[in-house]
């Protein structure tokens, strides 16, 4: 009987193997099937949006790093002094991980949720809401990672990478993407119209411009610095910058922890909301 359940491959036998587990009601352990689905879908629909994410930070790097950078000269961030291009490069990387994750987890997820009814279909199979949340967020992480790899190659060609710590920018970009995708998806699952999504999008530009992307936040009064430091993009930029400059310290651990916590909260909220939307 047990042996049969282990070797048999019917859908029921597969579900039975997990039936006793604590999370059996919300997770089947097949979040990767969403990656399969999204990869197949990429061929036909979102390829261009995916590419934009590669190109955008490179354009910013050239225009600001070398155009504006020629006027500015070097930037001093505490003890180190670096070229302006090297100063903004890690920030652009963090921002592109954020943008890709937000785009995926807001507009794409909303469309799948309400128009394509993709999640309805998934949840009429033995997949659970946690699979769907993990799958979509995992997809955003892959996107973040691929942007990071692409951008790192470009940055290296421009001679902007100076330390092996830079390689850690790839997992860092994934962590940023994880947290933004988890928060983005949980907010999207609460929304009932495209207008509300536009509001979310509305906050992205100020976040991008004022999170210390193009200048150190020491330009702000103290109280504003505290507020900015609490926002996720600043946390991401502080993390990528310290990796790019090889500054490995407790603050870096703090950023990592920050993203793990808000990512986990977003994941939890998304799972509960998907359950309420599709299994209630």
């Amino acid at each position: 009987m047990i042996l049969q359940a282990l070797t048999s491959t019917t859908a029921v036998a597969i579900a039975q193997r997990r039936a006793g587990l604590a999370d059996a009601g919300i997770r089947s352990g097949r979040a990767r099937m969403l990656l399969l689905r999204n990869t197949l879908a990429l061929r036909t629909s979102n390829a261009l949006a995916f590419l934009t994410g590669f190109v955008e930070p490179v354009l910013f790097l050239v225009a600001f790093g070398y155009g504006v950078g020629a006027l500015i000269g070097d930037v001093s961030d505490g003890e180190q002094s670096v070229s302006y291009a090297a100063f903004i490069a890690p920030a652009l990387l963090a921002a592109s991980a954020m943008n890709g994750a937000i785009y995926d987890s807001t507009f794409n997820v909303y469309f799948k949720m309400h128009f394509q009814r993709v999640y309805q279909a998934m949840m009429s199979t033995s997949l659970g809401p946690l699979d769907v949340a993990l799958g979509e967020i995992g997809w955003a992480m892959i996107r973040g990672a691929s942007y990071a790899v692409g951008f790192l190659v470009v940055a290296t060609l421009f001679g902007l990478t100076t330390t092996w710590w830079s390689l850690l920018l790839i997992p860092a970009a994934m962590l940023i993407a994880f947290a933004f995708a988890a928060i983005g998806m949980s907010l999207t699952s609460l929304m009932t119209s495209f207008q509300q999504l536009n509001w979310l999008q509305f906050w992205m530009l100020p976040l991008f411009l004022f999170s210390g992307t193009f200048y150190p936040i020491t330009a702000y009064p103290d109280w504003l610095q505290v507020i900015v430091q609490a926002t996720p993009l600043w946390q991401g930029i502080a993390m990528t910058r310290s990796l790019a400059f090889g500054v490995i310290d407790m603050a870096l651990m703090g950023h990592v922890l920050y993203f793990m916590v808000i990512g986990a909260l977003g994941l939890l909220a998304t799972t509960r909301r998907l359950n309420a939307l599709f299994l209630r």
Partner: protein
Amino acid sequence: MDVAFPPGRHGWLCPVIWARDLTKSYATKTSGDVLAVDSIDLEVGPGESFGILGANGAGKSTTMRMIGATLQRTSGELTILGHDPQHEGPLIRAHLGVVPQQDTLDTDLTVRENIYVYGRYFGLSRAELQPRVDDLLDFAQLQDKRDAKVDSLSGGMKRRLTIARSLVNEPSLLLLDEPTTGLDPQARHLLWDRLFRLRETGVTLVLTTHYMDEAEQLCERLVVMDAGRIVAEGSPAHLIRTHAGREVVEVRFGAQRSNEVVPHLAGIGQRTEVLPDRILLYTEAGEADLHEIVARGLTPTTALVRRASLEDVFLRLTGRTLVDE
């Protein structure tokens, strides 16, 4: 978890669906709690084909979604294949094939990928799925559309694809919510043919429909739902016999005359139903009654004698026609 059943009326040891006082009320912001399913009992045995007949808003889809373990009941008991959907949703869904009222086909994928990826959601392996997807494409007669995008399919093709997709996990219970609504007669007959074949393989079918001919064709047993309640249950023939009689005389007198004529029809047939556009007389002997009408000098503009159908049962039980006219 196995559940011991109180001996049911139908005597199945392990009914596929077993519901007692099953109730669902939706909490809405605008109109308070909406009681969509109101304390219904259901019992469906293995291999049966079972129908739920009802007008718009009767609660058919709500019932189907509770059975499909994607909607939680408000109260009552529900067991699907011996499992409680409240606690074992994914396990139950692994047994099921679901054809929802509105298609949920993945428009980013091709026809073939729709079936394949759906099978992967159940955890089936690529090697196992490849021949099965091919068989299902044959079954749905979509082999030549295999690499087409879903958007390019006709309504009937989409419905066939949805049915094919619902079979990818070899379900023992297939839930079809209005499988043929919106299809032309030819497409409906093609679908019926596929469903007949499935029935022969022992799959339990539960379907909802507005169409009495569909219910008569496909269902061995059915319930009639009205406003969230079950108002009748039995085989199509049994329901017609008990609620409608043998024959129906349909006469039209034109909108103005209709009401004047009604009193003059007294004594003809067993029961009279006055609709806005026509009068129905339920009777055992239609021809004789029609002669009597003419003999009384009531000269209808059109007259028709036909066998009683489920449509009449529905009208009798709910005071409404099945398909909104």
